[in-house]
C-alpha cells in the first residue's frame, strides 16, 4: 500500500514536513505564554508582553500555513494514489477474461473500485497522517516537559501509558460489538428493503403483522447492542478525561509547591498546564486510528486481489496480425470445460468451413452451441484441441486484430446509457451519421429510430427511453454491422423479433454476409431460423451429433427430426 505512494513522494514528504513544523509551532505557543507572564507581566516589562503577543500571532500564522500544507498535501497525495489505483484496477477489470467475469460479481468489483479504494485513501490521508503527527507531538512535548522540570514531567507523562491502556482495552473488548452493530443495522435495512421490493407479496399474503414483528424485534436487538456500546464508552472515556484532569491537579499542586519554594516560576507552571491540553489529543487519535489500519489493510488486500489477478487470455509472444480471412475455419478435436466446472461443455468438436459459407449451429439450451462461438474470438481458450483460421491457430493472432475481424451479436443485448447513435457506434465512436444510418437500415431499425422524437439522438439505456427486446436486438445487430468484421456470428439474435421482421433482416443480412464476410455463423434454437443455412451443425450435450443441410438432416438425423416435429407441432397447436 505504501508502495503506491512513491509517485507522490514529494507531496507526502511535504505533508510530513508540514506536520513536523506544525508540532513545533504548537509546542512554541506555551513557551510564549511563559515568556509573556514571567518576563513581561511579572517583571512589569510591557514591551515583552507585546512582543510575546505578537510572536503568538506569528506562531498562529505559521501553524495555519503548516496545518493547511499538511492536510492539503496529504489529501492531494492520497487522491493521487486513489486515482492510480482506480485506473489500475479498472484497466485490469476491463482486460480480465470472460472466465474471471463469469465467477466475479459485479457488485463486489464495484465495491473494490469505490469503497475499498476510498478506505485506503482515507487511511493514507487521515489515519496514517494522524498517527505520525500524534507520535511526533507526543515525543516532542515529552522532551520539552522533561527539559522544563523532570519531576513534574514524570508525573504528567503517567497519563500517557494509563490512558493508552484504557483505550487499548476499550478497543480490544468492543471491536466485536461495533462490528455487531454494523451487522445488525445491515440486517435491519435488509428487512426494510425486502418489504419495499416485495410489498405486493407482503400484502397479498397478509404478512404485514408478521413482518412488522420481525422488524420490531430486530430493531429492539439493535437498541440493546447499541446500548452495549454506549456502556462501553461510558466505562472508558470519562476515566481518560478524569485522568488528565487529576494530572492537572497534581501538576498544580506539585508545581505550586515548587513555585512557593522558589524553584519554579508562575509562567512555567502555566506553560506546563498548556502542554497537558496538547497531550491528551494524540493519544485519542492513535487509539482511533488503530481500527482504521486493520480496515485499510483488509481493503488493500481486496483491491490487490483484483489488480494481481492473472489475465488468462493474452497475446502470445510473437503473435501476428490477423489481416484478411480466407474463410477456412477449422475446429480440430476441440474440448472445452468452463473454469470451475467439472463437466466438459464441448467434447471433441471437429469441423471445417468453406469460404463464404453460412453455418448454422442448432441445439437446445445447454447443448454447447454458444460455447463454440465463444472460442473463436478467444473469449475462452480451448481446453484441448485447436481452432485455426486459414491454417493459423487463433492463439497465434493478436487479440485485438482477431476480435476486430470477428463481428458478434450476443444473445443478450446490452444498451449503454447514451444516444441511439452512440449505441450503434459503440465500436467505432467516430463513425459518421451516414454509416450509422446505413447499418440501421440493414438491421431494419431505421424506420423505428426516425419515428422517435429525437431520432438518432434519442437517449436510451437506464435513464432513457425503454425499448422492446426486439428493438434492442436490432440495435445490437446494427452495432455489429458497423465493425470491420469479416467473420460474423449471430447468437440467437432474432429471438425477440417477430417473424416478418426477422425475415426482412435475414434477407438484408444474407446479401451482406455473402458479400462482405468470409464465413458467417448463426446460432439458434428454432429450425425455422436455420433451415436456409448452407450447413447446419446439430449440437447435443456438448457433442456435434450431425451436420448437413436441412434436407440432409431431415433424412439422416433422428434428433433433428424430433426437434422439427416438436417445433412444428407446437406452432400448430
Amino acid at each position: 500500500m505504501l508502495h503506491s505512494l512513491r509517485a507522490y513522494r514529494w507531496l507526502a514528504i511535504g505533508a510530513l514536513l508540514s506536520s513536523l513544523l506544525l508540532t513545533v509551532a504548537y509546542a512554541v505557543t506555551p513557551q510564549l505564554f511563559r515568556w509573556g507572564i514571567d518576563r513581561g507581566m511579572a517583571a512589569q516589562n510591557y514591551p515583552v508582553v507585546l512582543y510575546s503577543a505578537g510572536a503568538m500571532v506569528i506562531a498562529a500564522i505559521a501553524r495555519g500555513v503548516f496545518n493547511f500544507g499538511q492536510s492539503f498535501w496529504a489529501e492531494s497525495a492520497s487522491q493521487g494514489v486513489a486515482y492510480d489505483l482506480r485506473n489500475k484496477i479498472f484497466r485490469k477489470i476491463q482486460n480480465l477474461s470472460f472466465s474471471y467475469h463469469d465467477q466475479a460479481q459485479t457488485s463486489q468489483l464495484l465495491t473494490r473500485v469505490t469503497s475499498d479504494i476510498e478506505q485506503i485513501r482515507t487511511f493514507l490521508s487521515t489515519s496514517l497522517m494522524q498517527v505520525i503527527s500524534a507520535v511526533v507531538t507526543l515525543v516532542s512535548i515529552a522532551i520539552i516537559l522533561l527539559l522544563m522540570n523532570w519531576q513534574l514531567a514524570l508525573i504528567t507523562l503517567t497519563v500517557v501509558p494509563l490512558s493508552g491502556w484504557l483505550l487499548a482495552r476499550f478497543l480490544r473488548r468492543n471491536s466485536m460489538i461495533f462490528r455487531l452493530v454494523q451487522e445488525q443495522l445491515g440486517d435491519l435495512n435488509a428487512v426494510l428493503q425486502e418489504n419495499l421490493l416485495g410489498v405486493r407479496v407482503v400484502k397479498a399474503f397478509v404478512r404485514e403483522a408478521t413482518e412488522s414483528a420481525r422488524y420490531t424485534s430486530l430493531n429492539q436487538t439493535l437498541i440493546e447492542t447499541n446500548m452495549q456500546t454506549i456502556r462501553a464508552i461510558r466505562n472508558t472515556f470519562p476515566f481518560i478525561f478524569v485522568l488528565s484532569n487529576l494530572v492537572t491537579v497534581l501538576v498544580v499542586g506539585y508545581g505550586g509547591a515548587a513555585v512557593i519554594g522558589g524553584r519554579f516560576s508562575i509562567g512555567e507552571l502555566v506553560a506546563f498546564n498548556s502542554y497537558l491540553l496538547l497531550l491528551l489529543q494524540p493519544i485519542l487519535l492513535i487509539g482511533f486510528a488503530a481500527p482504521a489500519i486493520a480496515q485499510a489493510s483488509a481493503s488493500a488486500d481486496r483491491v490487490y486481489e483484483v489488480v494481481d489477478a492473472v489475465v488468462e487470455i493474452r497475446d502470445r509472444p510473437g503473435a501476428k496480425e490477423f489481416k484478411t480471412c480466407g474463410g477456412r475455419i477449422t475446429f480440430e478435436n476441440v474440448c472445452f470445460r468452463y473454469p470451475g466446472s467439472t463437466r466438459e461443455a464441448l467434447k471433441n468438436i471437429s469441423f471445417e468451413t468453406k469460404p463464404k459459407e453460412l453455418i448454422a449451429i442448432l441445439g437446445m439450451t445447454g447443448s454447447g452451441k454458444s460455447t463454440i462461438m465463444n472460442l473463436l474470438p478467444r473469449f475462452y481458450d480451448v481446453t484441448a484441441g485447436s481452432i485455426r483460421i486459414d491454417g493459423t491457430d487463433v492463439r497465434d493472432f493478436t487479440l485485438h486484430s482477431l476480435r476486430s475481424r470477428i463481428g458478434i451479436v450476443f444473445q443478450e443485448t446490452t444498451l449503454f446509457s447514451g444516444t441511439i447513435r452512440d449505441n450503434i457506434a459503440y465500436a467505432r465512436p467516430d463513425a459518421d451519421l451516414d454509416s450509422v444510418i446505413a447499418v440501421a437500415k440493414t438491421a431494419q431499425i431505421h424506420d423505428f429510430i426516425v419515428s422517435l422524437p429525437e431520432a438518432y439522438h434519442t437517449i436510451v439505456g437506464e435513464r432513457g427511453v425503454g425499448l422492446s427486446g426486439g428493438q434492442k436486438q436490432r440495435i445490437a445487430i446494427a452495432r455489429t454491422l458497423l465493425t470491420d468484421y469479416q467473420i460474423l456470428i449471430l447468437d440467437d439474435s432474432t429471438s425477440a423479433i417477430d417473424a416478418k421482421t426477422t425475415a426482412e433482416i435475414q434477407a438484408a443480412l444474407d446479401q451482406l454476409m455473402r458479400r462482405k464476410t468470409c464465413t458467417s455463423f448463426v446460432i439458434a434454437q428454432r429450425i425455422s431460423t436455420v433451415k436456409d443455412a448452407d450447413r447446419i451443425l446439430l449440437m447435443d450435450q456438448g457433442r456435434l451429433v450431425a451436420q448437413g443441410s436441412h434436407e440432409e438432416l431431415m433424412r439422416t438425423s433422428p434428433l433433428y427430426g424430433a426437434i422439427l416435429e416438436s417445433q412444428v407441432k407446437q406452432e400448430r397447436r
Partner: protein
Amino acid sequence: MKSNTPVVASEQKSNQQISTLRRFLGYLQPYRREIPGALAMVATGAVTQSVGPFLIGWSIDHLIARGNLAGLLQMLALLASIYLLGIVAIRGQILRVGWIMQRLLAQLRQDIFHKIQSLPIRFFDRSEAGDLMSRLLNDVNTVNQAFGQTVAQMLGNLFSLVGIVIAMLSINLQLGLLSNLVVPLMIFTTGLFARWARARFRVTRKTIGELSAKLEEDITSVREAQAFNRVSLNIEEFELLNAANRDANVEAVAITAAFLPSIDFLNTLATAGVLAYGGYLTITGAATVGVVTAFLLYVQLFFRPIQILSQFYTQAQSALAGLERIFLLLDEPNQLQDAADATIMPPIQGEVRFEQVSFGYNSNQLVLRNVSLIAQPGEMIALVGPTGAGKSTIINLILRFYDVTNGVVKIDGIDIRSVTQSSLRRQIGIVLQDNILFSGTVAENIAFGRPNASQAEIEAAAQLANVHDFILSLPQGYQTQLGERGAPLSQGQRQLISIARAVMIDPRILILDEATSSIDTRTEALVQAAIAKLLKGRTSFVIAHRLSTVTQADRVLVIQQGQIVEQGSHLELLDRQGVYANLYALQLGST
C-alpha cells in the same frame, strides 16, 4: 438584483429546516420526564470541565503567589472532588442521552417501516418511488450517525462554551468582552467556509456519481467491450472521469483544509489580545497575573468546542436534509382503509365478476374502461395483450390493491369493498414474475402466508410444487438460510419456492404473472408441471407469456388499451384472425 431569488430560497430552506427540526424534537415527547435529568447531567459535566482554569487561576493569585501551601492543597482537594463529580455526571450523561437517542431513532425507523406497510400500492408504482426508496436507507443511516453518538458530545460542548463565556465575563468583564469579540468573526467564517465547501462538494458528488455510473456500466458490459475492442477507449474515458473526480476532491479539500487554520488564527488573535491587554492591566495593577493566566487557559479551551461544533454543523446539515425526506415520506397519504362496517369474507367458492369496471390512477386518464367479465369457479383465464394494456390492473383490482373508479368487482357475488382486505387476500394466492423471496430459511419462505404451519405441511406444499427434492439437496435442507431476495437460488428455483409459498395457503383464487425470462429446460419443466398442479380446481388469472399457457387456458382474454377486445379459447381466437391472431404471430410465434 440578481441575488434576490437565492436569498428567498435560502430563507425558505432555513424555515423548512426549522420545521423539520421541530418535528424531530417532537420525537422527544415520550422522554420528557427523562430529559431534565439528562440535561442536568450534561450541564454538570460541562461545568466541572470548565471550572478548572478558573480555580487554577484563582489559586495562582491568592494561594501560590502568597505562598499559602495549605490553602493550595485544600483548593486542589476541592478541584479533585469536582473532577470526580464530573466523571459521575459524564457517565450518567452518556448513558441517559444515549438511551433516549437510541430509542428515539428506533422509533423513527419503526415509523418509517409502518409507513411503508401502510402506503398504497400506487405509491410503489410511481416511477420516482424507487428513487426515494434507495435514498431512504441512506437517509436513515445519516440520521443515525449524526444523532446517535454525537448528540451528547455536542450538547456538552455547547454547555462548556456557555460556561466558559460566563466564567470569562465574571472574572474580568473587559478581558471577557475582548476575547469574545472574535466569536461573531468565527461564526461568520464558519458560515463562509460552509458555503464555499457546499459548492465544492456538490462538484465532487457529481463527479463521483459520473464515475460510478461509468464504472458500473463498463463492468457489466465488459464482454461487449472485449468483443468490440472498446477496452482501451473505455480505459481512456474512465481515466478522464477519474481525474475529474480527483481534481474536484483536491479543490474541495483546499477549502476544508483552510477552515481550521482560519479558526485557529482567530482564536490566537483573541489569545494575543488577552495577553497584550491583560499584560497592560497587570502592569497598571488593574488585574492580577492569575486572572490573565486563567483567561489564557480559557481562550485555549474555547477553541475545541467551536471546532467540534462546526464539524457537527455540516453533519447536521445532511442529517436534516435526510430527515426532511423521511418526513416527506411519512406525510404520504395512507392506503385504502377497510370500510367501517367491513365484514369477514366467507370461504370463497371462486366466482369472480367484473361489472362495468373502470379504473384510472387519476380520473381523467382511465387505464381500464368498462370491463365486464365473469370467471366461473375453477376456470383458468389467460390475460394477453401488449405491455400497459391493463392486464396487471385487472389483477391489482382483484386483490384490491386499488379500488375501482366505477363499477364493481364481486367475488361470489360479494362486493370486495364490503369485506376486510386481510380476509379477502388470505384466500387469494399469487405467484409474481420477479419471485421475490425474503431473508430467512427456506421453510420460513414457504410458510410465508402461514407462519404457524407445521413442518409436514410445509413439506407437502414443497412436494406439490416439485421443489422438495431440490430443498433436500441443499446443505441444511429446509433450514437453509436464504439471503436477500432469495440469494443464492437461481431464478427457476426461486420460482418453484414461490409456487410452494402460494400452495401453502391453499388459495381459492390464484393469480399468476408468468416470468418472461428464460430458465433452464429442466427447471422449466418442473415449473410448468407445478403450475399445472397448482391451477387445478382453482379459479385462476394468468398473465401469459408462453404458448403452452394460453393453449391450456379455458379462456383467453385479449386486453388492449384498457378494454377486453376478444375472448375465447386459443383455437377459437386463432380462427377469428383478429387481434389475437396478429399478436400471436408477432410475439408468441417467434419464440
